[in-house]
């Protein structure tokens, strides 16, 4: 993972937040808007380093809060916490499996709004929550899981398209070839 990919992930978070603000098709269809930041954080946790994760959490979270009625900074810490939890176990995660990606994305997309809401409630804000929020939570979780799978597919494809890959060397070397003969 190089600098270009890191920049692409951060750019994707900004465009994603803008799309959440302007594209309302999913909201009208299912009653809930999907959040693109938790899937990106999961991707960053499995493919980049904590510094990139921190930059992504701060920029994405602040942009999300600035276009929302949220208190500024409320989304930042939940995003980073979730990505750090994934990062701390990334050696044990089968990250090439569709199922693992989906479950991680769904869990992250479900945990981040809960943590953000807890932070909001602790600062005496009164967000609109009710029984309908449970449905929104499920939609965000499932949608987030699918978006995580899509994130891996898109960014891995971009990584392959924009970066050089070292050619895998075979162990065969011509100068060490043992020529066998009758004599």
């Amino acid at each position, binding site marked *: 993972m190089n600098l270009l990919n890191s920049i692409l992930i951060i750019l994707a978070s*900004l*465009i994603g*937040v*803008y799309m*959440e*603000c*302007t594209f*309302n098709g999913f*909201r*009208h269809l299912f*009653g*809930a*808007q999907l*959040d693109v930041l938790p899937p990106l954080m999961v991707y960053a946790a499995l493919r980049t380093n*904590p*510094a990139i*994760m*921190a930059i992504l*959490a*701060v920029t994405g979270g*602040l*942009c*999300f*809060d*600035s*276009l*929302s*009625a*949220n*208190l*500024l*900074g*409320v989304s*930042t*810490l939940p995003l*980073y916490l979730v990505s*750090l939890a994934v*990062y*701390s176990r990334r050696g044990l995660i089968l990250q090439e499996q569709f199922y693992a990606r989906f479950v991680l994305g769904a869990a992250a997309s479900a945990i981040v*709004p809960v943590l*953000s*809401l807890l932070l*909001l409630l602790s*600062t005496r804000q*009164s*967000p*609109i*929550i*009710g*029984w*309908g*929020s449970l*449905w*929104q939570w499920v939609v*965000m979780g499932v949608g987030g899981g699918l978006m995580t799978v899509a994130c891996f597919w898109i960014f891995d494809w971009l990584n392959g398209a924009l970066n050089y890959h070292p050619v895998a060397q075979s162990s065969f070397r011509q100068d060490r070839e043992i020529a066998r003969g009758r004599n």
Partner: protein
Amino acid sequence: MLKKPHYIAFGLVGLVTLIVLSLPQHTAGQIKLAIGGLFLPLFGLSKSSQQLIREAGNAVVPRSELIRQNGVLHQSNEVYRLRAMQAEAVFRENEHLRQLLSWRQGTPQSLWNLKLARVVGQDPANWWHTIQIDLGSRDGMQTNLTVLVPEGFVGRISAVGLTTSQVALIGNPNCKVSAIVASDKTGEIGVITGGTGPLDSSLVTLSYLSNTNNLKPGQIVRTSGEGGLTRGGIAIGQTAENARTVELGYAEVRVKLSANLNSLEEVWVLMP
């Protein structure tokens, strides 16, 4: 497992969050507007692309259809001009009668000064009902200005940037509105305190009603103008059920909004 640099990064993010959360409201608002400004090119791009699509759509409409629509609009325009003339005459007469009676209670009503705004975005969070409009401080926007559509009240401006503003929609806990239920006897005054849930934005709760004897479903609810934040007489909706008494001794009733908050594309801002 996590190493020392990871804990340092976590500490830094936590520190940034704490600092930002503890900023004074005004400073946090200014930073929000500055960060929101990063998206202005994207909002502009979206606006111009929508305009292009609309123009392309207009270009393929047959001329005969345009002439027919023009005729219909011309006719309705005539009707509205006559009605406006009639309303202005009633307004002048009202003013004259007020002067004759030396009516001093309340400020005299003036004609509405409206400004058209386009909705450029909705709140990305599912737990707030706000929209972004394409008018800002350079267009004379201020916080608490009333936002409406021809069907009725929509909300109030909650934050103002240079070129965009945030509107807290009715039903949002940050947009409380004093309302009056039109009844045969005396109008019952209450406060629209919030919505009925995160999924349904068409119903709001009218609370703090003291007398529920005259209330029945289907009665018109309008802004009362009490408190001075919103002008009186703007349609809000209709009562959707019989009033029910809640614990603290007051009653509340659900109100079906006249305006459809899910399909707002253009709104009017009531200028001071």
